[in-house]
């Protein structure tokens, strides 16, 4: 019975990960550590809430890690690649399974914590942004978070410049209407 416990270990050591792969993951782990705060923040802007942000980031980073060397060699800028991949993942809404959260839960009792389930509360612009369809929201984030040009956004999302322009116009007009309406109706 004791031997049965040892067996899995022996089998595992008999088939070690190649050195190349381990080295790749070491470097990848470093990238993850450095990139996570920025990517989670970016995901928050894209997805509109912490849980979907973590979901987006985890999916994209896992896929990048699985072929780390290729991504580094081909793109030269894994961070930019990760952001682009996140924008596309957000748009295509292929996040079927909700992952465990990468975001630490802060204790609710902490009086100084600004953390809330929705940290922006009922801030109008944030709420209006969250209500936009995914593609319009992605265009807005790429434009005003990433400061990308229309042409760059078109390339990043694989859509035409005309679509970028029309999506941006629609989004801005919706945002403006929502802001205006709610502001105007306030006593």
């Amino acid at each position, binding site marked *: 019975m004791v031997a049965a416990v040892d067996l899995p270990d022996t089998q595992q050591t008999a088939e070690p990960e190649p050195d*190349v*792969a381990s080295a*790749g*993951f070491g470097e*990848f*782990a470093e990238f*993850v*550590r450095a990139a*996570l*705060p920025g990517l*989670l923040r970016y995901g*928050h*802007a894209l997805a509109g809430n*912490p849980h979907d*942000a*973590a979901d987006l980031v*985890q999916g994209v*980073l*896992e*896929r990048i*890690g*699985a*072929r*780390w060397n*290729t*991504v580094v060699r*081909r793109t030269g800028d894994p961070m930019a690649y990760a952001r*682009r*991949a996140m924008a*596309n*993942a957000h748009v*295509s809404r*292929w996040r079927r399974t909700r992952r*465990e*959260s*990468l*975001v*630490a839960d*802060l204790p609710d009792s902490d009086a100084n914590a*600004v*953390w809330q389930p929705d940290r*922006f509360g009922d*801030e109008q*612009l944030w709420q209006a*942004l969250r209500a936009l369809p995914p593609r319009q929201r992605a265009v807005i*984030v790429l434009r*005003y*978070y990433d400061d990308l*040009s*229309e*042409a*760059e956004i078109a390339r*990043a*999302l*694989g859509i035409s410049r005309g679509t970028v322009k029309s999506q*941006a116009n629609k989004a*801005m007009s919706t*945002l*403006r209407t929502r*802001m205006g309406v709610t502001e105007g109706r306030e006593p």
Partner: protein
Amino acid sequence: MTSDEHEPDVPSDLGDELRRLFADDRLTLPVSQDAETRVVTGARRRRRHRRALATTGGVLAMAAVVLAGAMLSGLVHPSHQVRSASGGPPVLSTTAVTTTAPTVSSSPVPAATEDTVEVLGPDGVGWLSLGMPWQKALASGLLRQSGPVTSAGCLRYTVLVESPRDRTTEPTTPTVPLWADSTEIVVNVHDGVIQLITGPALHTPEGIGVGSSREDLRDAYPKLILPVHSGTTSVSVAGNPYAVYVFNINSDGDVTSFSLRMAKSDCLG
């Protein structure tokens, strides 16, 4: 491709407000302690899955899948001539299927790793390129015909991993390029090399290869239209307006094989 023509800002403060919002501290999220471990573990699991597909199932399934893929993508395998309108005699219909299995399967070729993959495209790989004349490709001595000539003048070849005269070298340390492992080509006698069908050692410049997932494809080619279940799909090749990548995707959404082919040449005559 100039990209610095920034749009004039929306003539309102809304743009500024959005920038302020995106710079807000409240957007920052606290990272959990084990986040890094979780991501790396997930990446490792995905890579293992990809490798398993690329090295075992992928190669074994290659003969079958490649044939199916070539037919779906408009190339007719010599043994499955479907063009009937020409009125030509039906071409041999029973051979070739078995001969398309990799002819070098007895020589152990190391599994492709991240560092040994090479790029297929935009024009070809190694000494092979799309449009290379038939005779020139043959002159390499590294091709073995794997099917009869079709009435449209198409032939299929397996690319030899080693030239026969090099066979005496130590098989575990091949001096030959790994990209040739399981690679096949289709030649049209008029147009030259019209399709390169790859083995597991090759990637597209965007990093897609055998074992890539549906999501990898989506990341790399936002414009790609993916089949709902299994099937084949193609996308234009950056830097080569005359070529397309054709991906064969199984029901799990993984790439089982892919090829670089001329967009306007096929084996339909």
